[in-house]
């Protein structure tokens, strides 16, 4: 049942070129220690699937700064000029996706669906890569599932079984990504005994979490 892993061991499991879903929205709810360790270990050629790349020096922006990302699937990069610069310079391949569509594509992969039909993007340039399907006279885009080798999750609390909860707007993409990564690595602000997070409060069941990053204690062990 113990899933604890050191931060460096967790990141050593992730090879160069891996595809990563990373939770968080403008850095809020991102697994910051895992991101920093990916940079420290010099990981390269990553595919990152995330809502955004935060800002330079913050959250996923640190992977962009370190030129660790080869391909990005995101909804918004407007607040990170470095991501835009790398995209325009051809250093990084960026696929932009409407936010609701990105969430549903990730959910589809995690929930075992063959895709989702959404009205968002019909008749726009977002439709260029999706098939249009008419249902009862209304047009939808068929958006295909999006999975990844790893999901890196930023939780509020984890218990010893790996059950997770989230705080306020730090939840965002984390719970759906925890369903869609082949290997799920979570870091939490607190690790608590089993039972502290009641069954009703668990958002991500521990069975989905393959590895839980061990705490770093402010005053050592």
């Amino acid at each position: 049942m113990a899933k604890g892993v050191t931060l460096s061991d967790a990141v050593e499991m992730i090879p160069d070129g891996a595809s990563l879903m990373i939770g968080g929205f403008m850095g809020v709810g991102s697994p910051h220690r895992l991101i920093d360790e990916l940079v420290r270990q010099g990981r390269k050629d990553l595919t990152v699937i995330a809502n955004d790349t935060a800002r330079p020096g913050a959250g996923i922006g640190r992977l962009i700064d370190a030129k660790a990302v080869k391909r990005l699937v995101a909804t918004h990069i407007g607040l990170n000029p470095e991501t835009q610069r790398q995209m325009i310079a051809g250093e990084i391949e960026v696929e932009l996706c409407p936010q609701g569509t990105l969430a549903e594509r990730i959910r589809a992969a995690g929930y075992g669906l063959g895709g989702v039909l959404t009205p968002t993007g019909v008749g726009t340039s977002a439709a260029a890569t999706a098939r249009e399907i008419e249902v009862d006279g209304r047009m939808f885009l068929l958006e295909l599932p999006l999975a990844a080798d790893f999901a890196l999750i930023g939780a509020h609390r984890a218990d010893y079984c790996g059950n997770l909860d989230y705080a306020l707007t730090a939840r965002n993409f984390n719970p759906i990504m925890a369903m869609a990564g082949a290997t799920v690595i979570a870091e939490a602000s607190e690790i608590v005994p089993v039972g502290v997070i009641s069954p009703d409060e668990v958002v991500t069941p521990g069975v989905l979490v393959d590895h839980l990053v061990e705490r770093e204690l402010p005053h050592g062990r």
Partner: protein
Amino acid sequence: MDAKELIARRIACELKSGDLVNLGIGLPTTVARYLPPGIDVFFQAENGLIGIKPLPQIGMEDEYLADAGGGFIGAIPGACAFDSCFSFGLIRGGHVDITVLGGLQVDEQGLLANWTIPGKMVPGMGGAMDLVTGVKRVIVAMTHTNKGERKILRKCTLPLTSVRPISLVVTELAVIEPTAEGLVLKELAPGATVEQVVAATEARLIVSSNVVSMPLAA
């Protein structure tokens, strides 16, 4: 009062008690400042919260509580948090009453372009395409022209945000409503004239038989 404040004060008059409201980044966010007294609405942040309120004081930030622009916020009693799938279920599913968004161009069919200028500005659409496609009323807050260049056009030249027409455009000169017949000029800002609005608009305007002066929230 500058152009942006005037636009925000006019749009604040559109909000009704009980509305679930999503405000875009920038000018739209400022609409919340002018909410008329006695009107209670819920503000949604698409990153996963109903019940935004401003941060009460610098230094009181909760690192887990931010708006869609990444700025730290507070929350009202009764606020609730949820994941991104649920948040966009609210948006796409028609559960949000009003969204206020910025605009680059609006055309005679009421179509909006507001997310990219190819080759110049490629921020990504974020939640804009879902909002314009799914929210009950879509209000565009924008300056009437950009450095003299007209933005209300016969046909948008920039990539569209949605093929669903928006509900209302509010500028520092006028309030314009897209209808099946075309764009209807309904209200004028204090001091603005019909001739001035027509000259600043490329699209054909149907001048309403009773053009009124814009109401403005205090």
